[in-house]
């Protein structure tokens, strides 16, 4: 079982009076087959949290750890944009992040590309794909390393509504099938409610304000009454936080 542990984590950018606090003493623990969404207004440090978890940025104080059965976990990352190498084919983009580039890895990559309905475009360059297709390659890439934990930073925010909805369904299916621990950053509360069994609400200034378990059956239709009520409740908290901080 994989565990994400965030322990008294703080992050400040800059020094002196111009310093900006992105995260302020954040404590969080996520483990097992959990899909946790981190929501909050822009500038509340959600992306910074993910960047620190994936080693792109270093914390000012505090610690983070991602472990699996006591050892360092393998982590897959899906970014806001696909971040594919434009000069490598779709298949090569997946192969490049594999530890071993053997036949098994190739088969695995093909499987995950099939899962996101792009198994027939493996030889194409990313520039030949639409934005939604590129993002699907990004998702397949993250799954293809068979990670214990998946970190996703607003992966659907640049996509049109219909594509985003399709990809959300794909993602949910993959999560159910693979039983990964997923941490999903989004500013879209509806998206969070549709996908997660736990929602963590951040406030401006980088503090955890709410930690809500959502125990509704999947698939969750946004038109369903329970889903709509849950979304409205979180949104209300969200608005209160915005008012407090501004």
């Amino acid at each position: 079982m994989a565990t994400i542990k965030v322990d008294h984590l703080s992050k400040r950018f800059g020094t002196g009076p111009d310093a900006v606090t992105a995260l302020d003493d954040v404590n969080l623990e996520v483990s097992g087959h959990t899909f946790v969404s981190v929501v909050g207004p822009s500038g509340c440090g959600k992306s910074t949290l993910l960047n620190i978890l994936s080693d792109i940025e270093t914390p000012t104080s505090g610690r983070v750890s991602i472990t699996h059965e006591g050892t360092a976990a393998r982590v897959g990352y899906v970014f806001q944009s696909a971040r594919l190498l434009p000069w490598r084919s779709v298949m090569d983009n997946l192969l490049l992040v594999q530890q071993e580039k053997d036949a098994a890895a190739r088969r695995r990559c093909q499987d995950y590309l099939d899962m996101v309905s792009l198994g027939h475009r493996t030889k194409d360059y990313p520039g030949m794909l639409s934005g939604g297709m590129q993002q699907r390659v990004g998702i397949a890439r993250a799954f293809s390393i068979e990670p214990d934990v998946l970190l996703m930073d607003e992966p659907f925010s640049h996509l049109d509504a219909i594509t985003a909805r399709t990809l959300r369904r794909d993602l949910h299916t993959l999560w159910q099938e693979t039983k990964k621990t997923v941490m999903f950053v989004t500013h879209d509360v509806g998206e969070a409610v549709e996908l997660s069994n736990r929602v963590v609400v951040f406030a401006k200034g980088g503090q955890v304000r709410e930690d809500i378990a959502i125990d509704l059956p999947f698939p969750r239709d946004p038109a369903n009454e329970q889903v709509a009520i849950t979304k409205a409740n979180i949104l209300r908290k969200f608005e209160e936080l915005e008012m407090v901080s501004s």
Partner: protein
Amino acid sequence: MVLLLLLVWQVVTPLLETRLIPMPLDVASFMWDEIRGETLARTTVWEAFGISLARLLTGLAIAFAIGTPIGLAMGAWKAVDSFFKDFIVVGLAMPSLVWALLTGMWFGMGNLAPIITVVLAALPFVVLNAAEGVRDVPSDLSEMGRAFEMPRSRVVRHIVFPSLMPFFFAALRYGLGNGWKGLVLAEVWAATNGAGWNIRYWYDAHRAAGVVGYALFFVIFALIVERWGFEALSNRVFRWRPSTDRDVVEEDLSAQPTKIPQTQEA
């Protein structure tokens, strides 16, 4: 267009009083003799170009060998950048004619002056482009590499190096063009053979057809290198770039709902 130009040239020249502008047919017949090796000069056109080309490539190789590490360091570290920056500006501003004259004075007749001229003329472009290239390595892709724990060697080979390629091409193109101009000048002043020397030879012999013929030979050579060398090479290296006539095909969203259940069953 080219044919029209030649026609105008052939028709208008005899009307002018000067006899220093050769007619296209004169140039053609002169160059035909040269190309067959029937020349009064010490070397045939092929030998002369062979010598010049060898000097050009040697000079360019040296310019890249020196310029690439300096440029990469400039791109990576601010201190190195501010140290070399002014030299580069001076190098860019310096006409290659000056390098040709100076190296001629310093090194005398021979291979050294033309080769050093090529190095000096091409170097600033190599350094500048290498530095720009490093600054332009997409940080989002390096971050991706870090997030996926890609080994350092893989990041350099698959992320840093390919993103330097456009700058490498720009450096090659400008370096080649500027180096070539400097080379010919240096050969006019400070060499005992080569294409530039042959131009000088026909200039001294008052054979305008020879000067024009060799100049045209340069132009045609440059065109061939550009068209069949650079374009072919860059089409190959940058084949991943979506071409304008092959638009990105938008995904067919109507097909999606039928596909999703399939993945769910899988």
